[in-house]
């Protein structure tokens, strides 16, 4: 299978900070992959580089067989690569329905039926149908996350980048959202790359994990293997100078088993 997204030798510096160092990975169509790493590892920077919000210094990104270098964010979205933001960024002052309608007006999808009706269908899909006419300013955080996803889905992406979709959500809100993400993946054949710190939920969703630390990819593999990978354990807990009593942590460091 030819990969949907191929990233090769991607690097980005901010002055003296080498935020992303020579990263390479590939994502298959319809795959669900986790992007794991401690705070400051460069995960969100990778998202910003892939979606055109930042330009990369060296390397190449190919989506659907075509290079993305130099394209502005809106052009990349219209190629079928959509994202959500770590902090929900709704269009303040507009209703939930209007928020999604804006994305239905993107050139990639604006001929697929009437934007307002499509927006309603998408809201039903993410479970916000009954809040269509609410102004987003008063929406609780969990609903804003769903709104972010509905807005990204409106552009009919082939690859969706989710930046910490569960951040700031209570346990009761996480499961429905996780279910929604797996339904989207199964029904639409959507490929998903997901940054998340809530490992238990992440590991249930993904088939493969890319682990990052200090701007580098330190491990790639299946979830069960990744959480035991020494570099990952080191990144999260520190170098093992473990005494005998600490072996429980060493065996199941992230409580994911």
């Amino acid at each position, binding site marked *: 299978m030819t990969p949907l997204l191929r990233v090769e030798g991607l690097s980005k510096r901010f002055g003296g900070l080498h935020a992303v160092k020579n990263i390479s990975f590939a994502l298959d169509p319809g795959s669900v992959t986790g992007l794991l790493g401690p705070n400051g590892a460069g995960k969100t920077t990778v998202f910003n580089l892939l979606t055109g919000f930042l330009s990369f210094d060296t390397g190449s990104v190919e989506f659907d067989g075509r290079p993305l270098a130099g394209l502005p964010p809106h052009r990349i979205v219209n190629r079928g690569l959509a994202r*959500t933001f770590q902090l929900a960024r*709704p269009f303040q002052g*507009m209703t939930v329905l209007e928020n999604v*309608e*804006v994305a239905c007006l*993107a050139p990639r999808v604006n001929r697929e039926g009437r934007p307002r009706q499509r927006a309603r269908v998408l809201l039903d899909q993410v479970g916000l149908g009954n809040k269509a006419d609410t102004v987003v300013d008063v929406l609780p955080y969990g609903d804003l996350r769903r709104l972010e996803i509905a807005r990204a889905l409106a552009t009919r992406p082939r690859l969706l980048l989710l930046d910490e979709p569960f951040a700031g959500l209570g346990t009761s809100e996480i499961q429905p959202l996780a279910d929604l993400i797996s339904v989207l993946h199964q029904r639409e054949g959507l490929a998903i790359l997901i940054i998340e710190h809530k490992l238990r939920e992440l590991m249930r969703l993904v088939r493969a994990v890319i682990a990052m630390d200090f701007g580098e990819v330190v491990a790639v593999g299946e979830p069960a293997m990744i959480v035991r990978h020494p570099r990952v354990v080191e990144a999260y807990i520190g170098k093992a100078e473990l005494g005998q009593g600490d072996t429980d942590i060493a065996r199941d460091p992230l409580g994911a088993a």
Partner: protein
Amino acid sequence: MRGSSVDWLAAFLAAVALAAVPWLFANNYIVGVMTVALCFGIWAASWDFMSGLTGRENFGHSLFIGVGAYTAGFLNVNYGLSPWWSLVAAPGTAVLFSLIMGFPTLRLKGPYFALAMLSGAAVMQNLTIIFSVYTGGQDGLNGLDPILDSPLAYYYLTLLLMLAAVVILKLLANSSWGTILRAIRGDEASCQAAGINVTFYKIAALMISAAFAGLGGALYAHYQLQVGPDLFAIVLSINIIVMVYVGGLGSIYGPVGGAILLNVLTESLRAVSEYRLWVYTLILIFILFFMPQGLIAPLWRRVRGLLQ
């Protein structure tokens, strides 16, 4: 009654009321004040379309007004063209200037656009003085022909064009274009993430805004029969912004109401001569302090709620 039919009915009644002004006060002075007020109405509505919807404040709307007015002056006085041509040419040159101002500055985030418009207007004001051979310097260009000879006919022409401008801008604001412009106000990065070419929409909105500002400039020039450097003045831009806020930001029709209200207020305060600015400023502070959402648009929304 359905929401939109209430709106159209109210718009119709407002248009009838404005059309009745010359019959209610058979007085050339009042008709003249109202003609100028309608020009301000076009300027306020066109400012609101760009800046009220997208949130990118334009502090130099007078640039487009002055460019429109001087275009009218050049064509009519220097080249002897019929004043009707001004109504086509003035919006054209204003749009040209909107591209010159918008292309470099609207691609950027931050205050560059607001500052560039502010200084652009100031630069043009000085250029009219430097190139006084062509522009008449401080005296400006004099002896423009009126588009229509009778003040009454001129009032109705201005009213007709203002109504057309407001209807066009309001329909655009209510269309998917307006939705996108309001989304730009909400969050520009999210707009890009939604696949919208933000720069394109901002520049297009500025072009439309400039076209109507230029049209208003030409109407004003052929009414005053004179154009001068003051048409580029920053105080004119600020007055327009105040009218928009008094009327209700982002509503298009509200700013027209604000423009008429403040023009009529200024004129009626002539009676208190030296205290005029005092009273005017106090009333403004009162309105903006107690009604930060503006006067006209929120008032209409309340009435509309009662009617439905």
